[in-house]
C-alpha cells in the first residue's frame, strides 16, 4: 500500500471575473497514496472545493487549471482526452457533494440512480448492481436496506440520503472518492451516523479519499493526514495526530484555539426580578399541525438564553411566536411583565422596537439593493425620527459599535461585504432600534469558525455595554458553551430540560440532552471510536435512533 494514487504538483487554478483571470489556487502540491484519507480544511473561499474537483481533472464553468500537473495512477488528467476521462470519472474516481438532496435527481428512485454508473461503465449488469446496492445500503446501516432503494429522494431523510449518495459513489468500487463537506448540512446527531458510515466503508474497501470540510473536529475523526489551505495556498500538512497536538503555523494554531472563547456565566438574576421576556405555556400550530407544546422560559435583563435542539425541534418557531409572526393558540408572551398581543400587526411601535432579530443567512436578511447606510439608517429614522445629519451621525455611531468604520462601508452594497461583515450589519440594524431583547437565530452557523468567534465576542461585548438580553437559537453546543448563561433544550416542540449553563453541562442529563452533548465532535481523533464503543455499537448506524428511544 505504498504506491502513489494521486499526485498533484504545483497546481494553479484561475477563475474568471470581470474579463480577467484571478488566481484561486496558487501552486499547491498534493499526494495521496492508495487507501489513504486526506483531510482538506480551510475557511470558505480558501479553494478547498476547487482543489478537490481539480483532483478529478475537472473545473467548474469559468474556472481553469492554468499550471502544474494532476496525475492519477500514471494518467495525466490535464492532457487526457475526453474519452480517457470519461473512463475514469464515475468508475475509478467518484464525488460526494455537500447537499445530497440537491444532487439526487428527484424524478428517479435511489436504486436506479445507483445502478447508472456501473451499468454505463459496463462493470456490472443492472441486476448485479442492484443486488450490490442493497448490500451497500446494508453495510451503511440504512434502515430497511432491501426496500429503501425503491424510494424517491424526497421520501428519505437528509442523513439517509447522504449515506445513499456514499453508497452510490462506492457502486463502481472506485480507487478515490472526493467528499465535499458531506455532513455540513446535517444535525449533530445525524452527522455521527454519516461519519461512522463513511469511515467504515472507506476502511472496508481500502478506498482512498479526499475529505473536504471546514470542521476540524470532523476531519480529525476521518483523516490520516490533514492539509490546511488559506487563500489558495497551503499552510501546512501533517499526520492527523501530529497536526492536532503540535500545529506549526500561526494560522493553524488560531484555528485550533477558536473554541477556547468562553465567557463565565453571569450570576442568577434575583428571584423577584421581572424578566425582559417571559414565554408562558405557549402552544402553537402551523394550520392544524401542532409544533409547540407548553413551552415556558424566562429571559432576564443582560442575560443570554441559548435554545438548542436539532432541526424541527421548534426553536425557530418559538422565535416566530415571540416576534408575533406566528400567533400562538394558547399561552402568553410577556415583555417587561406586560402581555404582548399575539399578532405583530397589533403590537405598538414601541413593542416592536424592543424585540429585534438577527438572522442566520445574512445574504437574505439584507436587501441587496440598499446600501449599508440605508439598511442601518431606516430603523433609526423609523423609530427615532432622526433625519439628515443627525441620522448620519447615528449610523456612524452604530457602525463604530460593530467595528466597521462608516467612512469606508456606509456606501457599499451588501454584495461588497464578506459573510462576517454582513452579519455585523445585521447586528447594527437590530441595534439601531435600541432594543432590550434580540433574538439571534443561528447567527454563526453559516460562518467560518474564526469569523464566528469574532461575531460571538462582539455580541458578548455589546451585551455588557448595552445590557441587552439575547435569545440564542443554535444547534452548535460549542457556541452554547461560549456565550450562554442559561440553556433551554427543545425536542419535538417541547422543552426537555432547562437550567443554568453549568448545570446543563454536568450530568445527570435528560437522555436527549445526553445524546446531543455526546454527539458534538471533539478534536480527539479517537473520539468517534470511543463514542461508538461507549454507545455499545460496533458500527453505529442506527445507534442514535436507538438511544433516543
Amino acid at each position: 500500500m505504498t504506491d502513489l494514487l494521486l499526485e498533484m504538483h504545483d497546481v494553479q487554478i484561475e477563475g474568471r471575473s470581470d474579463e480577467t483571470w484571478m488566481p484561486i489556487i496558487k501552486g499547491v502540491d498534493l499526494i495521496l497514496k492508495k487507501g489513504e484519507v486526506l483531510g482538506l480544511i480551510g475557511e470558505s473561499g480558501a479553494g478547498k472545493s476547487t482543489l478537490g474537483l481539480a483532483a478529478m481533472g475537472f473545473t467548474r464553468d469559468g474556472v481553469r487549471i492554468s499550471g502544474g500537473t494532476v496525475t492519477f495512477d500514471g494518467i495525466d488528467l490535464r492532457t487526457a482526452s475526453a474519452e480517457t476521462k470519461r473512463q475514469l470519472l464515475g468508475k475509478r474516481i467518484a464525488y460526494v457533494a455537500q447537499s445530497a438532496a440537491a444532487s439526487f435527481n428527484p424524478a428517479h428512485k435511489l436504486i436506479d440512480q445507483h445502478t447508472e454508473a456501473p451499468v454505463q461503465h459496463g462493470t456490472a449488469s443492472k441486476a448485479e448492481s442492484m443486488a450490490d446496492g442493497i448490500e451497500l445500503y446494508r453495510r451503511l446501516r440504512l434502515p430497511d436496506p432491501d426496500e429503501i432503494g425503491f424510494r424517491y429522494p424526497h421520501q428519505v431523510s437528509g442523513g439517509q440520503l447522504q449515506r445513499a449518495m456514499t453508497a452510490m459513489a462506492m457502486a463502481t468500487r472506485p480507487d478515490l472518492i472526493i467528499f465535499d463537506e458531506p455532513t455540513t448540512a446535517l444535525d449533530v446527531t445525524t452527522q455521527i451516523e454519516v461519519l461512522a458510515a463513511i469511515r467504515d466503508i472507506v476502511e472496508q474497501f481500502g478506498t482512498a479519499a479526499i475529505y473536504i470540510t471546514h470542521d476540524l473536529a470532523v476531519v480529525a475523526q476521518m483523516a490520516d493526514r490533514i492539509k490546511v489551505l488559506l487563500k489558495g495556498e497551503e499552510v501546512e500538512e501533517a499526520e492527523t495526530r501530529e497536526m492536532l497536538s503540535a500545529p506549526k503555523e500561526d494560522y493553524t494554531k488560531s484555528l485550533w484555539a477558536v473554541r477556547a472563547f468562553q465567557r463565565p456565566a453571569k450570576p442568577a438574576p434575583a428571584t423577584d426580578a421581572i424578566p425582559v421576556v417571559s414565554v408562558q405555556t405557549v402552544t402553537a400550530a402551523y394550520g392544524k399541525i401542532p409544533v409547540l407544546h407548553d413551552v415556558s422560559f424566562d429571559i432576564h435583563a443582560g442575560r443570554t438564553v441559548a435554545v438548542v435542539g436539532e432541526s424541527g425541534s421548534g426553536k425557530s418557531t418559538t422565535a416566530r411566536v415571540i416576534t408575533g409572526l406566528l400567533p400562538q393558540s394558547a399561552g402568553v408572551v410577556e415583555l417587561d411583565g406586560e402581555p404582548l398581543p399575539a399578532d405583530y400587526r397589533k403590537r405598538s411601535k414601541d413593542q416592536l422596537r424592543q424585540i429585534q432579530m438577527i438572522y442566520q443567512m445574512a445574504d437574505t436578511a439584507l436587501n441587496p439593493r440598499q446600501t449599508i447606510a440605508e439598511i442601518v439608517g431606516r430603523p433609526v429614522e423609523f423609530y427615532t425620527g432622526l433625519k439628515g445629519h443627525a441620522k448620519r451621525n447615528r449610523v456612524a455611531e452604530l457602525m463604530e459599535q460593530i467595528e466597521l468604520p462608516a467612512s469606508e462601508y456606509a456606501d457599499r452594497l451588501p454584495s461588497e461585504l464578506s459573510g462576517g461583515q454582513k452579519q455585523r450589519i445585521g447586528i447594527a440594524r437590530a441595534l439601531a432600534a435600541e432594543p432590550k431583547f434580540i433574538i439571534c437565530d443561528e447567527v454563526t452557523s453559516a460562518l467560518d469558525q474564526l469569523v464566528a468567534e469574532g461575531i460571538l465576542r462582539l455580541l458578548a461585548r455589546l451585551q455588557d455595554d448595552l445590557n441587552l438580553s439575547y435569545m440564542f437559537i443554535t444547534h452548535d453546543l460549542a457556541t452554547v458553551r461560549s456565550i450562554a448563561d442559561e440553556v433551554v433544550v427543545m425536542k419535538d416542540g417541547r422543552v426537555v430540560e432547562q437550567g443554568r449553563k453549568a448545570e446543563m453541562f454536568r450530568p445527570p442529563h435528560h437522555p436527549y440532552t445526553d445524546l446531543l452533548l455526546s454527539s458534538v465532535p471533539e478534536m480527539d481523533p479517537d473520539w468517534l471510536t470511543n463514542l461508538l464503543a461507549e454507545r455499545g455499537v460496533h458500527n453505529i448506524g442506527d445507534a442514535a435512533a436507538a438511544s433516543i428511544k
Partner: protein
Amino acid sequence: MSAWILVPAVFASLLALGWAGRLAGQKATGNAPTYRDMPLAVAFGYAFALALVVAGVWLYLQPATLDGAPRASVIFWRWAVHFLAASAVAAFVFRLAGRHIGTEGTKKAFRNMPLTAAFGILVVLIYALTAIFAGWIAPHGQSQVFATANVVPGGNAALGGNPEFPLGTDQIGRDILSRLIYGAQNTVGIAFATTLLAFFLGGTLGFLAATLQGWVDQVLSRLVDVLMAIPSLIFSLLLITVASAWVSGAGLTAAMVVIIAVIDSTRVFRLSRAVGMNIVVMDYIEAAKLRGEGLTYLIFREILPNATAPLLAEFGLRFCFVFLTISALSFLGLGIQPPLADWGTMVKDLSAFINYAAFAPQIASAPLLAAGAIALLTVAVNFVVDWMLQRSSGLKE
C-alpha cells in the same frame, strides 16, 4: 425525385468535409485538445456553417439581372447584406463615439458594451428622435395627398421613381417617407403609453397580491385567470368593436390603449406576483414587517428594487408584443384610425405590391418598408433588454 438524392448527398458530403477538416486540424496542430476531443457532429456543424457562408458569398456575387430581367433573390440578398454591414459599421462607430464622449459613467458603460447592444441603443435613439421631431423631419404632412400616386421607391426615374418622393407614394398619392416618420410618432408613442399603463396596472396589483396574499391574492389572481382564458387578440377586437359604439376617432384610439393595457397587464400581473412571491419570503422583508413598516414602503422600497431586472426584461418584450398587437389591429382596420399614419395600416394598404416581388423588387419594397420598421425596432429593443439583463444579471440566479 432529385431532392431525394440531392439532400442525402449534400448531407454526406458535408459530413465528409467535417471529418476531413477535423483530421486536418488534428494533423496541423499536433493533436491539440480542441480538435482531438471534437465530436463529429460539431465538425459537421462547422462544415455546414462554412457551406452557408460560401453560398451567401456566391449569391452576392451573382449578376443582378438575367437576360435583362432583375433577379429578385440576388437583389434582396444584396440589400440585406448591405443593410447588415451598414448596421454593424454604424453600431461600431456609435460605440466608439460613446467611449470618448460623455461622462465617466456612460464611457464605462460603452467600454463593456457588446456590438448588438450598441446597435439596439442607436436604433432606439433614432426612433425616439424621429418620433419626437416628426413634424420637423418629415418633408410632407402625413395626410397630404399628391397628384402622383404609386411612385416606386428608390427615386430612380427610369424605374418609375421620383426624386421628390425618395421612398415613393402610396395608392392615393401620400408620401411614404413622411408617413413612415409620422408612423414612428403614432405607433411607437401609443405602444409605449400602452405598455407603461399595462405595467403600472399589472405591477402594482401583482406586488399587492404577493405582499397581502390571502383573499386579495385569490380574487385578483382568479380575475386575471378569467381574462387570460380568452384569446387576447379576439378579446381586444371584441372590446374595441363594443367601444366603437360610443366613441370614434381619437376617442377610439384612447379606448384601444386602455383595452390593450388591461389585457396585457394580466401577463405583467403574473410575472410581478411570481417575482414578488420570491422576494416577500426573504428575511429582510420579514425584518421590515416586524419593524412595523407600511405597505407602500414594503412594495416600493423593499420589493420593487429587487424586481427591476425581470420586470425590465418583460418591459422590453411586452413593448414589442403591444406594438405588434397595435399593428395587427391597425392591419385589420380597428387600430389607429386614418388619416393618422400607422405602420400596421401602411403594410395593409400597400400589401398588394408584394405580388411584384419576383420580377420588380423595387415596387415590392413599398410594403416592406413599414414592416421592416416594425421588425427593426422589435429586434433593437430586445438587444438592449438582453444587455441590461446581463449587466444587472438578475436572471442568472
